[in-house]
């Protein structure tokens, strides 16, 4: 119930500080390096700082039509996949959490099973089927494959969220005159809301960065941002192209995080992750 993390007690927590520093180095250092590369025009060994900063590569990258179309496509894909996934998975999650029906457990664990085996093999098998269905290289083909990838988050996390909603709260709402649908809308959903929002965000960001499925099913017609970035790095050894694209790829993460903070608020977000 606590809206904030418990405040640390008086003594300085050296282990905690150590972890914080280690994490910062591991996460922030590469980000700084990539971020620096994106704004660098000349940076030769053995200099620690680039010889020349500049926006030349931004101009070159952003003037390319394929970058813009890939960005738009990626945003469209992530949005469509996330919405579809929510529409399919949230009712299913509610059913798993609140109802008993034959085959419930088997079905529930099958969602996990899809992630328990090496994913690429599964993808190749799906690709073979999609080939027959003429879905290879199409938008909806990629949507389908990426949808499969989101099922895990979008079922498991919301199931946990719905299960943790106090049944008595729902009964109390029935008691004062709310229909079952109204109870779901006014009580269950808001109670499970922060956690479900976390799942939706994970699914959006996860889809945006997904490459294996997008490449295998989408190529050559559909090129998402991450796929485009890989192509750039593979074809032309210009580090800056890759760096600029990475920085561009951070955009959805930042938007997602800002959105999370605004809409849910720090404490509730932590609660969503079981805090």
């Amino acid at each position, binding site marked *: 119930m606590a809206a904030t993390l418990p405040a640390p007690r008086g003594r300085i927590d050296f282990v905690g500080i150590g972890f914080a520093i280690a994490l910062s180095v591991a996460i922030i250092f590469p980000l700084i390096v990539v971020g620096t590369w994106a704004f660098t025009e000349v940076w030769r060994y053995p200099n620690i700082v680039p010889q020349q900063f500049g926006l030349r590569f931004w101009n070159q990258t952003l003037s390319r039509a394929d970058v813009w179309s890939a960005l738009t496509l990626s945003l469209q894909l992530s949005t469509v996949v996330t919405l579809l996934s929510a529409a399919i998975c949230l009712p299913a999650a509610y059913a798993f959490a609140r109802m008993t029906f034959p085959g419930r457990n088997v079905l529930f664990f099958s969602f996990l099973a899809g992630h328990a085996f090496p994913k690429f093999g599964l993808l190749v098998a799906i690709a073979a089927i999609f080939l027959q269905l003429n879905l290879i290289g199409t938008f909806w083909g990629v949507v389908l494959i990426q949808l499969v990838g989101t099922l895990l988050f979008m079922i498991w996390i919301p199931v946990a969220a719905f299960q943790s909603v106090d049944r008595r*709260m729902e*009964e109390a709402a029935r*008691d*004062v*005159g*709310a*229909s079952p649908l109204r109870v779901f809308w006014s009580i269950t959903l808001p109670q499970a*809301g922060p956690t479900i929002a976390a799942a939706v965000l994970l699914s959006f960001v996860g889809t945006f960065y997904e490459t294996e499925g997008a490449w295998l099913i989408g190529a050559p017609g559909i090129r998402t941002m991450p796929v485009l970035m890989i192509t750039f790095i593979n074809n032309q050894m210009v580090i800056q192209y890759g760096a600029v694209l990475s920085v561009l790829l951070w955009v959805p993460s930042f938007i997602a995080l800002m959105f999370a903070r605004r809409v849910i608020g720090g404490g509730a977000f932590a609660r969503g992750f079981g805090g």
Partner: protein
Amino acid sequence: MARLDIANVSKLFGSTKAVDDFSITVEDGELVCLLGPSGSGKSTLLRMIGGFEKPTYGSMTIDGEEVIHLPPEKRPTGMVFQSHALWSHMNVFKNIAFGLKLRRLPKAEIERRVEAVLELVGLSGYGQRLTHQLSGGQQQRVALARSLVLEPKILLLDEPFASLDQHLRERLREEVRDIQQRLKITTLFVTHAQDEALSVADRIVVLRDGRTEQIARPAEVYREPATPFVAGFIGQMNLVSGVVADGRFGHSAFNVPAAVADGPATLAVRPEALAIAPASGAGMAHVHRVTDYGTHAMIDVELPDGERLKSMMPTADQWTPMQKVDLVPGAFALYRDNGVIYRADAALALAKPARKTRSTVHA
């Protein structure tokens, strides 16, 4: 204000009978306590009235109208849960206003009613608080207000104060009783605390394993328990098994007159009706422990077969552990086959004090 009729209601969960053939008529404005040990079916019964469980058999009417087939939202009942079940994503005002909004009342009317009910439960000015910014007692008051604001015909309280400390519990139950009397609202109050039931109820229903043991006014349940179970459950009671022979109930340390047919019987005597006297002969019982409460003393007496009884005496002074004593029962009752077969009131027993005897009769 309403009358509730429950007739022959049973509830089965698989093969367990949670409620077994229960019937009662609760009069308009009456407060009935459902009292019983854990698992005796109190909550199940209340949840059936609220519409959260469907009876397997039987009928329930409110003001003559059958409600069995109505879902909770269509029933004129209001329920307060043990865990208060306030909606933590709404503030106090919204919690209370939710039911009124569902009824599409105008905004001004909703505000007026919420204010009034907050005042009724002593929480004026708390409307904007979040539920976790309230103490346990305040949360329960909000839960109560949330039900009361809709003016239910029947108020259902399922151990609403069980999680609160003794002091607060006493205060809140007095408040609930006051509000209930002021609004004249028909109420069912579940508790497993007998003091709670004795102090607020118009009538008490004692349940055991889903069956009714007794339905009566508090004083009657206390003074004339209908079964040995009720006798043991309400207040303190000494229960002694023995045998009736030739018009006397006998046990190792007891021998009292009882004009009933021969056979096994259980004697029930309250500590305040069981006096002790220094042994006139060898003495069959001895003092085990003396507890001085200031206002009175409780003497634990051990019988030859190891059984212990409690005797309430005015002072602790004359009693010491291991001292041999005789037992002098005042008012007592005899039970056989789960019913009363004999009652001796205090005056009678005092007029003819039990004769001490050396002849032991074993049950």
